[in-house]
């Protein structure tokens, strides 16, 4: 059974983010995915399944669409039965250990119509690692298009 207290550490363009491990429906290595044919679109690769294919998007550290060169894996989130993914330089499962994850709401208007991208933060002394809100990220990725 998945531990709701565990997090995946995603490295996007050199920046660390956390994702609740329960939000991931699949993690695939790069060589298990099919590269997207349209090199200019937001989708970098696809996970082929029996029932269809799941898109994986590339984002930079600022969550802008990008085409990172050195990504290794894609993490797929459930999105109303239509999994959708983001590629990462690294993906690790972190044990709970001494992690202190505190609720956090970014200031200002949400950057997407799906709400704020983060809803908590791991505070380790002065160091901050934001925890991604899976529903917001899935909605945001879906809004990027290119998955038709």
């Amino acid at each position, binding site marked *: 059974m998945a531990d709701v207290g565990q997090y995946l550490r995603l490295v996007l363009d050199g920046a660390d983010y956390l994702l609740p491990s329960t939000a991931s429906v699949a993690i695939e290595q790069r060589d298990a995915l099919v590269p997207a044919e349209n090199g200019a679109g937001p989708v970098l690769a696809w996970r082929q399944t029996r029932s269809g294919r799941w898109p994986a998007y590339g984002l930079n*550290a*600022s*969550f802008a669409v990008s085409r990172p060169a050195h990504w290794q894996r894609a993490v797929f989130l459930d999105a109303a039965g239509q999994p959708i993914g983001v590629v990462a330089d690294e993906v690790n499962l972190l044990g709970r250990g001494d992690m*202190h994850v*505190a*609720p*956090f*709401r*970014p*200031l*200002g*208007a*949400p*950057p*997407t119509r799906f709400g*704020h*991208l*983060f809803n908590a*933060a791991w*505070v*380790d*002394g*002065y*160091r*901050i*690692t*934001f925890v991604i809100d899976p529903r917001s990220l899935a909605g945001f990725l879906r809004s990027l298009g290119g998955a038709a």
Partner: protein
Amino acid sequence: MSTVVAEERIHSLEIPLAGASLLVPSAAVAEVTNPVKLFPVPGAPAWVLGVMGWRSQAVSVVSFEALLGRPVPPLSEDAKLVVFYPVAGPRASDFYAVLSIAEPRPQPVTSSSIETEDPSRLPDTPFVAAGVLIKGRALLIPDFEALRRVFYP
């Protein structure tokens, strides 16, 4: 019989900004700290400089200059981060901080030590409630309700 009424003194803090200073009640300030590494928040407005770890919490750091539509000053060695108690946000724990270009100064305020600044000389912004003159120097009083509205729209 005469009655002597003690003049009320409000303990306040002057927070130096680039090109202006804020005047806030000392009771609104939780701590003044040295600058630490700020972690940028993707998608945040330009007035959010980043987030810092403080007392096991993630605290957003705000540039009041940017809220006024002015350039954000560079982070100098003299800069300080002024951590404010939460405005009435979603959680009682939502502290926030304002970047100050120098050490804030205690500024005891009495009715006889201040004058009201001409409103026409104040920045055209909802984030300033009023201005006062202390010894001829203009200080801006932030509108905390307006800050709450922009923080948590």
